[in-house]
């Protein structure tokens, strides 16, 4: 099963990299871009056939390892 984990830094936490990317885009003339936030995606290949239990396990992985609960939120998407 293919599972995608989307990880985003919480909105209140600073994202200097996003800010720098926005600035560079403006320098290149793309001044219609008013803000940029960066995120990460993890594409997992997971063995298993029950969507629900796979999802549960991946949520577990996120809580323990994949996301940093202190500054990030995540979303799990099972692609099947």
């Amino acid at each position, binding site marked *: 099963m293919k599972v995608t984990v989307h990880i985003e830094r919480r909105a209140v936490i600073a994202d*200097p*990299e996003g800010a*720098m*990317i926005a600035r*560079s885009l403006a*320098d*290149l003339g793309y001044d219609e871009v008013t803000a940029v936030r960066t995120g990460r995606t993890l594409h997992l290949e997971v063995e298993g056939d029950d969507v629900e239990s796979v999802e549960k396990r991946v949520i577990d992985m996120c809580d323990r390892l994949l996301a940093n609960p202190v500054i990030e939120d995540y979303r799990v998407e099972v692609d099947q």
Partner: protein
Amino acid sequence: MADLCLLGTTPLPHRLRRRGSLASLVGDEVIGVVVFPGSNCELDVQWALQALGAETEIVWHRDTDLSGIDAVVLPGGFAHGDYLRTGAIARFSPVMTSVAEMAAAGRPVVGICNGFQILCEARLLGGALIANRDLSFICRPVEIEVVDSGTVLTAAVEPGTVLTLPLNSYEGQFTDPAEDVRIVARYVADVNGSQGRAAAVANAGGNVVGIMPHPERSSEEILGSADGRVLLEGLVAATERMTV
């Protein structure tokens, strides 16, 4: 002589275009050392080149006029914070147009560490540098074997020579799907997963060279190794040849 600049004081833009040389052993060729916001090895490169008698000039990334400059070094550091991808934003600095022109004209263009990454992003060299295989920053001396003497950096080195130079990078793993890579030096041991153990690569003309370890950090015995000097001497000599 006890100039704060020698300790590593800022390459202040208002001081730019000031030239310095310890001794004019060579002609009046000038090697430009380009500074982007976030660069940090520019004064080290300048120090090491000046110790060889070369004349150097710090060039700010917004400068577009490189007249009077015969070769350029893009030094190490974290240009634009390495944000997005290392070298990605620096590639668009105004100075890079002139750097590309120099490369096309066959002038020596050398990128060290972050400078190498910038040259790849600017497509002046093929390939890209991605995170080290073990995902950790590596700062330690490594052995590299020079395998190609036909470049501006290695002209003075016999193929097969092993040099000890400090590595100092996180994104040091060279990769190039094109596969017709001109490898100039290889790591003796596979330290970071680089394709073909590439530590340095060049363009077809041999005048544009990217090298991951730092020759300037091993340019004096007191720093633990003087093996980098032969590379910098090669650059100085190549610059001289070009301008004759």
